[in-house]
């Protein structure tokens, strides 16, 4: 790591009193944006050459170097201690986390070392500019209220500061009355208000003097549109000055989405959770410390305490010890809050501690995020004399069932039956029984059908013979239509003996069905009879010979069908 150092010779006096060497390195602010002025101070009760290690390569030294001495009373010993200090301003030009120090104070052959300081440098805030009117531009000086965001979620932080433009180079200001955001409860001032750093900047094609002033991190409360009321000031150049009132600014505060998770701790930002357990090997009844740390950036200062998830038999005693270690920056607050819980163990054995979960709202992704600690396990040795001081002692006793030797227990082979011959027979036998039963039923139904068919056929044969006898008697008596209709009916009944369902069929369909059952020759003869009957029925009175011929053909067909 590249390091830059600056060496100064402090005062040439030696120490008057013998005391232990103390070197303290401080940096303010600990979180700044790129190019923002920071002050590095080395304070020591030892006088000598000062050297600071690990200054970032992008650190640019300012011109402000202050040194001096101060005296403090040590109330323990009653001694007055002289501290020598030197402070240096500067700015870091690159975003990142830096570790500055340690600082060394060298006196003679001895070198005394200080602490190191971690500094976070963030992006330069891209502030929005309110509309500036042409009339304002004509004024010697004017001001705007700038914010890093126009719209935020409830709980999120917003950076607000005054930006002043002037046509003259300002030397100082007076009568400043700050801007106001209604309902602001949580506000943290950033930067050094006692000093202004003036730059030259082009604004609407004019080169103006400009500087930022009164920077605050604000956590607005409530939701909706809020107007930041303007500030007023008098900007001076030596003895001459110009009084003006700035523009106002408007910000929109959106409510958090509805139905937050049950473990939502009110955090808005980006966070992680960690868990540490002080001891993992304990005795029954011992109390161990469990540390839960919420680390991240957002509204850390406003979060509520997480609820640790503990198994049965673990009891939290009292309120947790809370330690806050965070800084205010453009993200709101950044750092960590730790909760130290005292947990008593009543259950013996090895127990897994389930992860503790919390939820926060991530404004970037606009959703609730659930985070959890890693699971842990602890071992608790049984203490036979321990009596749980717990409301539900029975429950604890149940949890602590003693693991004694077991009585002999020979189990039967619980897999011998499955997959064996008896098993498969047992599964398939009902099927076969059912199939056999169905087969028997079917067979019985078929035989009943056959008997019924036989009876019908017999009846039809009888009908045919009666019909034939009747036709023969009426051979010469009846009219054409009646005679041939009777011939047709008789033939149809005769054919129906072969096709049981023939009763419901027409003549043509019946003949069609018969083609597969009787000889073709017989079928043709039957067709001929039907045709002749059709022709002769409505013809002029046929003679007895013709009638006899049709009758003979009918008899022939019927006898062939009987065969």
């Amino acid at each position, binding site marked *: 790591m590249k390091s830059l150092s600056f060496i100064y010779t402090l005062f040439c006096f030696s120490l008057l009193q013998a005391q232990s060497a103390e070197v303290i390195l401080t940096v303010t602010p600990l979180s700044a944006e790129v190019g923002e002025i920071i002050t590095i101070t080395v304070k020591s009760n030892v006088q000598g050459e000062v050297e600071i290690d690990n200054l970032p390569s992008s650190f640019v030294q300012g011109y402000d170097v202050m040194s001096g001495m101060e005296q403090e009373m040590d109330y323990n010993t009653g001694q007055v201690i002289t501290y020598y200090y030197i402070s240096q301003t500067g700015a870091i030009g690159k975003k990142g986390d830096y570790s500055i120090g340690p600082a060394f104070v060298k006196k003679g052959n001895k070198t005394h070392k200080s602490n190191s300081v971690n500094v976070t440098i963030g992006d330069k805030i891209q502030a929005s500019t309110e509309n500036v009117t042409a009339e304002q531009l004509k004024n010697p000086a004017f001001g705007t209220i700038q914010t890093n965001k126009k719209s935020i979620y409830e709980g999120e932080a917003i950076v607000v500061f005054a930006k002043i433009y002037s046509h003259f180079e300002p030397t100082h200001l007076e009568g400043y009355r700050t801007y106001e955001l209604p309902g602001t409860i949580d506000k943290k001032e950033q930067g050094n208000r006692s000093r202004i750093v003036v730059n030259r900047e082009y604004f609407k094609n004019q080169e103006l003097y400009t500087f930022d002033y009164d920077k605050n991190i604000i956590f607005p409360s409530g939701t909706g549109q809020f107007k930041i009321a303007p500030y007023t000031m008098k900007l001076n150049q030596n003895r001459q000055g110009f009084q003006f009132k700035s523009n106002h600014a408007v910000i929109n505060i959106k409510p958090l989405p509805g139905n937050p998770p049950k473990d939502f701790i009110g955090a808005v930002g980006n966070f992680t959770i960690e868990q540490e357990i002080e001891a993992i090997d304990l005795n029954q009844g011992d109390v161990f410390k469990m540390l839960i740390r919420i680390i991240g950036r957002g509204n850390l200062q406003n979060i509520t305490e997480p609820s640790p998830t503990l198994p049965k038999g673990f009891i939290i005693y009292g309120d947790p010890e809370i330690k806050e270690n965070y800084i205010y920056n453009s993200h709101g607050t950044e750092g960590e809050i730790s909760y130290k819980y005292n947990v008593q163990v009543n259950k013996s054995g090895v127990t897994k501690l389930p992860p503790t979960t919390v939820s926060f709202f991530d404004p970037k992704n606009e959703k609730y995020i659930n985070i959890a600690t890693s699971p842990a*396990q602890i071992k608790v040795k049984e203490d036979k004399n321990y009596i749980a001081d717990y409301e539900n002692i029975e429950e604890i006793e149940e949890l602590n069932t003693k693991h004694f030797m077991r009585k*002999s227990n*020979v189990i039967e*082979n619980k*897999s011998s039956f499955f997959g064996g011959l008896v098993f498969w027979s047992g599964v398939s036998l*009902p099927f076969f029984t*059912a199939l056999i039963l169905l087969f028997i*039923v079917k067979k019985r139904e078929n035989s009943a059908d056959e008997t019924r068919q036989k009876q019908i056929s017999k009846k039809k044969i009888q009908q045919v013979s009666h019909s034939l006898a009747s036709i023969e008697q009426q051979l010469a008596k009846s009219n054409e239509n009646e005679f041939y209709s009777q011939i047709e009916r008789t033939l149809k009944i005769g054919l129906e003996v072969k096709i049981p369902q023939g009763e419901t069929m027409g003549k043509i369909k019946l003949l069609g069905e018969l083609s597969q059952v009787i000889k073709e020759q017989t079928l043709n003869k039957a067709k001929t009879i039907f045709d002749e009957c059709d022709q002769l029925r409505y013809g002029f009175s046929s003679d007895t010979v013709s009638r006899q011929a049709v009758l003979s053909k009918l008899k022939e067909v019927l006898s062939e069908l009987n065969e």
Partner: protein
Amino acid sequence: MKLFGKHITTFLLFILPLISYGNSTFQEGVKAFNDKNYELSADKFDSIISISPLNISAYFNYGLAKMKTGEYGEAIWGFEKVLKYNSSDAEAKEKIQECYFELNPDIFWTYRLNGFQSSLYSISANTWAVFAIICSLIIAFSIVLFRLKKSHSIRRIMLLSGSVSTLFLIISILFGTLSKNHATSTNYAIVTENTTSVIEKVKVEEGALIEVIELESNQYRVKLDDHQIVSLKKGDVKVI
């Protein structure tokens, strides 16, 4: 009758002495444990296991004795054996967790079977066999009634009961097969002491659960947690 008499004689001559020997050895094992002679206790239960491999309590007690002697790999094997025959044994699970904690507090042991598998295997294959036969009877009954009854509502009920029973029959056969495979399989083993694989020189820690691929003369080809296949000495491994 003669044959029956012969069986009785065999029973009296061989099985009864074995049972009485087993019982006395079991009591000796318990006594040795109570006298804090844990090695003797483990030996007694080991001998019971060799003559009566289905004595589930002997495995548990063997595990307890081995825990006391600090042989956690052996103890884990005993408790794993208990879980093989009764996968819902909470005490055995707790003890395994304790053994792994003693071997390495950073190891989080979780039973290789999930909740569903655990409850599935706690029902024996024979129980599934009985379910399967009952389903088969219901199916047969439904088929017959469906064929014989003319009423549409009855036929519909029979169709439904037949379909459901068929589904249950398939499930019973499937789960029964899984349960039987679990009970009879020798796929897993426990490494009983810290060892190094024979050929690959990979260090394998005591208590590691490994998958046995094959047994070669006096060493096992096994698959480790990281899917690495190595050979381990037969004496360093105990099959579950």
